[in-house]
């Protein structure tokens, strides 16, 4: 009996686990990719199947809109998603995602993905809820905070620039302490040619001359 119990438990561990999103938001007229993947202890078999079903909001019936089996993808050709579905998954990589184009308000609802990986077929399908908006609703306070931040930022910037200009203008006087081979008078003549307004003569007894910005 011990071996039988281990065999039963091993089978329960091998349940397939399916992953989709929880909720998806999209704008009217846009496209949305609904992703579906699974985890299974077994290698991906060649008879892996994916199927998507759709249940509109407020309805109790679901219809099948997509089925992948035997290496072929079968898309909805009669229902509400006729000519709007595209298979963008990779079954070899355990990805059964579909792409729905040109969304409308009638597409609000729950999409359920069911994947089977024979012999691993025991699993729970996973659902993703689709919400279609006319425009993305903006959160309270985002624009308020942005406007306040920008205006106060500009104010701080203006004040900083004002004080910076005052500081730079105040620093008009600077002195050159140089030892020149040709002598201080030549240096002052050079500085004068550079456009710096000078005192009439260098400070006597020193090697310095003072240059002041014009």
């Amino acid at each position, binding site marked *: 009996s011990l071996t039988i119990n281990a065999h039963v438990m091993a089978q329960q561990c091998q349940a397939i686990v399916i992953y989709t999103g929880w909720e998806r938001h999209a704008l009217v007229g846009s496209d949305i990719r609904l992703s579906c993947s699974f985890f299974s202890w077994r290698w991906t078999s060649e008879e892996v199947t994916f199927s998507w079903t759709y249940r509109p909001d407020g309805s109790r019936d679901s219809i099948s809109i997509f089925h992948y089996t035997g290496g072929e993808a079968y898309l909805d050709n009669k229902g509400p998603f006729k000519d709007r579905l595209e298979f963008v998954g990779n079954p070899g990589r355990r990805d059964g995602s579909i792409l729905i184009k040109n969304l409308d308000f009638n597409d609000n609802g729950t999409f359920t993905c069911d994947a089977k990986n024979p012999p691993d077929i025991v699993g729970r399908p996973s659902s993703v809820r689709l919400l279609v908006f006319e425009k993305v609703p*903006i959160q309270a306070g985002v624009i308020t905070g942005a406007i306040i931040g920008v205006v106060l930022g500009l104010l701080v910037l203006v004040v900083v620039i004002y004080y910076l200009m005052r500081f730079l203008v105040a620093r008009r006087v600077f002195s050159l302490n140089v030892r020149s081979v040709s002598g201080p008078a030549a240096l002052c003549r050079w500085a004068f040619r550079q456009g710096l307004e000078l005192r009439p003569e260098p400070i006597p007894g020193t090697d310095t001359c003072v240059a002041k910005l014009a």
Partner: protein
Amino acid sequence: MLFILLGVLLLHLVILILLIVSTAASAWSVGGNKSKDLWFDCLTTSGTYQCKHASNEEWIQAVQALMILSCIFCFCALIAFLYQLFRMVKGGQFFFTAIFQILASVFVMCGAIIYTVMRPDDATITHFGYAYVLAWVAFPLCLISGLIYIVLRKTE
């Protein structure tokens, strides 16, 4: 001189109080026992308030931002006025105070105009509330106060 100074300061304080009340009170539109904007949409029924948040639309958020900015700038003008009063040289102008006060009045005007234009038609709302009226009263007072600060010079 002292009376002029006290009068100007009193006017400034009154404007600041008007702006704060207008910004904080959620009574820009009223109708029956319903009072809404800028922050809450409240229904008063026999002693109880049922409030929900005001809508998230962009124009309401812009009005909120402009009213808050006008309060901030009016307050900064007050601080600048007190600072320049005690630290400025004789004969100087209240430059920063005037700038802040005039900017505050511009913000109040913009906020009140945006609210007036963008208010949705609602059957339950009959007229504008007191907070809206206070905003429109604060705007010319703030402008006049700013202009006074332009011509005011520190003597004595």
